[in-house]
């Protein structure tokens, strides 16, 4: 076995292909997350709490 073979095997074991998620940003949930991001950003750099455990729109 060569290291190149190991990397090919590792690539083949990728459980999530980003191309499968290409439509997620346009989905209801993706747009909900975007609105939440924009809303947080509209408060300004000092108005955003990172990691506050909130989920979804508030």
């Amino acid at each position, binding site marked *: *076995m*060569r*290291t190149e*073979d*190991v*990397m090919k*095997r*590792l*690539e083949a*074991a*990728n*459980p*999530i*292909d*980003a*191309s*499968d*998620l*290409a439509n*997620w*940003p*346009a989905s209801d*949930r*993706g747009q909900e*997350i*975007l609105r*939440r*991001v*924009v809303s*947080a*950003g*509209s408060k300004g*750099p000092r108005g*955003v709490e*990172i*990691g506050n*455990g909130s*989920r979804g729109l508030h």
Partner: protein
Amino acid sequence: MRPILQGIGNEEALLTSERSERLKSLYETYCPRVLAYALRRAPWEDAEEAVAETFIVAWRRLPEVPDDPIPWLLAVARRVLANQRRANARRKALDLRLGLAPRPESFVAPDPADEVGARMALGDALQHLREWDREALLLVAWDGLDNRQAALVMNCSPASFAVRVHRARRLLMQRLQEIEPNAPDPRARVGWPEEGR
């Protein structure tokens, strides 16, 4: 595709609408890769949360986001996920003290090697790597980054990354050979010449 993040100066000089458009463009273009990165390392709900927090950071620091944003975004997501794991561990530790956690195994944070699964020797071999080595390999193999981009995520020089990821590949290969001593050599199937003879 619209050009993004070009000509960004002082954040304060940008109109809110322009910033929003740039943020939306960044999100729509790169969100799938950030989400995929997070999903390989965390359950779906936590991964979505990590995506949200990553792009909130991007929004706050839009002038700092480079023209090639994916290493920057994955570096932020990596830190967000690490914070999540620490928070989850603290919460579970508290649950255990309160008698709410049924099993100590729940302390084990989600790990990318778990995603590969116990079903595969590869997953076992990955679990034997140090976290840094595993992350370096997966950034290249799963996230499709080159050494320069992955070095940015791991906050080291490209030369240092190249050396360490090469060593990680060798360690993974050695571990696989220990786990699968009788596995057929893939070279035999394609007629590659044997090495060292």
